[in-house]
């Protein structure tokens, strides 16, 4: 009889510990909405996040061990693939779409440009299996991890024993990805009253709220919806967007509304990386878009901006750059883990 309360106490203590460390590893910024990620099924621990970080940067995930997640999601470009229109895979293969920037993923309900992935836990499966990316199987990855010198111990620290399962592998990567929180941009500091925008930024912010905020909604700068933003389809690289997932014709040519945070770092833009500069993007929305029956309702009314207003809008978009996030050592390549020392 006496043992039951002790067991209970220990369990309560352990869950409190886990809850505590979860809170330290993941701090929702003030003003953000509630998260959608199910932390209760994957409580964060330092060891789990570090395991996920190691896996994120490890090329052994790809079939020929040449590319890692980081190859297309570099921390220095807010985990996007700067300068590359479409994702690059092993053996010089080129994927279908632009590698998106990664941050604030615990708020994101669906992943990929077409929303094909329904949970952050299972996101990593897609690039691992994709022929034009890592072209591997989860089974083969797990076999390599079991044979490695590094991972059995990392799995033991993170999970309590050395068993390397698909579930543990995926949850560790997801745990790391939830810690990629970006909310220290100039915009955030302005919102918190720590600084004031310049008149130009202020005017850009006003224009943004007038013309862009319906879809790129604050504070995450996306409404996570799928929309047709009037891009003329690329006939050489046919891509039906969300239709591929839902098979509903109304979803044809719809793509996810991406967050505009860190947009300065994450060029080129759009699902296929067709625009190299923000100037080109603004030009698209102020006159380049192709009207059609499925054009997003928010874009039906033409947006007209003077040349000065376009510059002001860009000045505002640059306030979304979070350099503290981009250079955060906690998210960077785990050199000490892979090569030892400092």
């Amino acid at each position, binding site marked *: 009889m006496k043992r039951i309360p002790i067991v209970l106490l220990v369990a309560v203590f352990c869950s409190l510990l886990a809850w505590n460390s979860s809170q330290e590893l993941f701090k929702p910024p003030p003003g953000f909405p509630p998260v959608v990620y*199910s932390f209760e*099924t*994957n409580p964060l621990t330092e060891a789990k996040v570090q395991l996920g970080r190691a896996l994120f940067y490890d090329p052994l995930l790809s079939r020929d061990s040449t590319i890692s997640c980081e190859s297309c999601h570099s921390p220095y470009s807010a985990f996007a693939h700067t300068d590359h229109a479409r994702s690059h895979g092993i053996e010089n293969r080129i994927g279908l779409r632009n590698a998106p920037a990664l941050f604030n993923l615990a708020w994101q309900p669906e992943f990929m440009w077409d929303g*094909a*992935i*329904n*949970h*952050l*836990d*299972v996101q990593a*499966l*897609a690039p*691992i*299996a*994709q022929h034009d990316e890592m072209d591997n*199987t*989860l*089974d083969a990855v*797990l076999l390599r991890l079991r044979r490695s010198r590094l991972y059995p111990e990392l799995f033991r620290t993170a999970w309590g024993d050395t068993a390397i*399962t*698909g*579930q*543990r*592998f*995926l*949850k560790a990567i*997801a745990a790391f990805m939830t810690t990629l929180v970006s909310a220290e941009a100039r915009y955030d500091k302005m919102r918190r009253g720590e600084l004031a925008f310049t008149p130009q930024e202020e005017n850009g912010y006003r224009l943004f709220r007038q013309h862009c905020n319906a879809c790129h909604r604050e504070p995450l700068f996306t409404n996570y919806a799928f929309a047709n933003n009037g891009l003329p389809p690329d006939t050489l690289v046919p891509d039906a967007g969300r239709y*591929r*997932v*839902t*098979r509903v014709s109304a979803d044809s040519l719809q793509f996810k509304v991406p967050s505009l945070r860190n947009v300065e770092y994450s060029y080129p833009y759009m699902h296929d990386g067709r625009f190299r500069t923000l100037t080109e993007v603004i030009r698209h929305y102020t006159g380049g878009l192709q009207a059609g029956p499925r054009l997003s309702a928010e874009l039906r009314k033409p947006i007209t901006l003077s040349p000065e207003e376009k510059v002001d809008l860009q000045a505002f978009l640059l306030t979304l750059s979070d350099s503290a996030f981009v250079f955060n050592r906690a998210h960077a390549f785990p050199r000490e883990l892979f090569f030892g020392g400092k």
Partner: protein
Amino acid sequence: MIPGLRSVVLVLIAGLSCVRLQAQSIRITVRAGDKELLSDSTEVNTRVNGHITIRSVRFYLSDVRLVRSGAVVWRDSQPAHLIDLRDPAHAVLSFPEGLSYDSLYFRFGTDSLLNVSGALGGDLDPAHGMYWAWNSGYIHCKIEGATERSNAPHHAIEYHLGGYLPPHASSREVRLPAGNELVLDLAEFLEAIKPAEQPAVNTPGLEAVRLCEVLARSFRMLP
């Protein structure tokens, strides 16, 4: 309680349960008509599709329940069982002792909740290859083989059936009387596939729904 009365009650209970005592486990086998499919290739003759070689059969049974007079008397704590022709030792459903029931309920495939719950473990671990990487969701059933009618390389046929989103949700509830051996009979399925026009189904959709419905009604219970 008086010791004498207690043993009388116990004997009575034992006697009653003897009458309705049921198997504590059910073996799961795969057949095509009267032919049992084994882990190696099995040749099957069909009426519509000619000669078919079956190489691999894997499927999920989930949310297993035992029912007596319409009431659930036991619900499986394991959310799903992956049944694989190559792993007959694992193709067993086990229940606690002393249960009496008249029916077995289960879902062929996995329901939508399991499909949106992130990375799961055990038989549902995505490492088993029964999870789609490109479009989240479990594959309810994989049936692979070959037939001359297929124009795919090596005359292969490959039916990877899944889908949890309406209108293409394809897992189905199955109810059967109590018994000792649960049989998935592929006879109707092998007549229903169209190996010449569609040697492979790898996406959720109408064809996956149609074939899953055929499979869900192809279970029977042997005494």
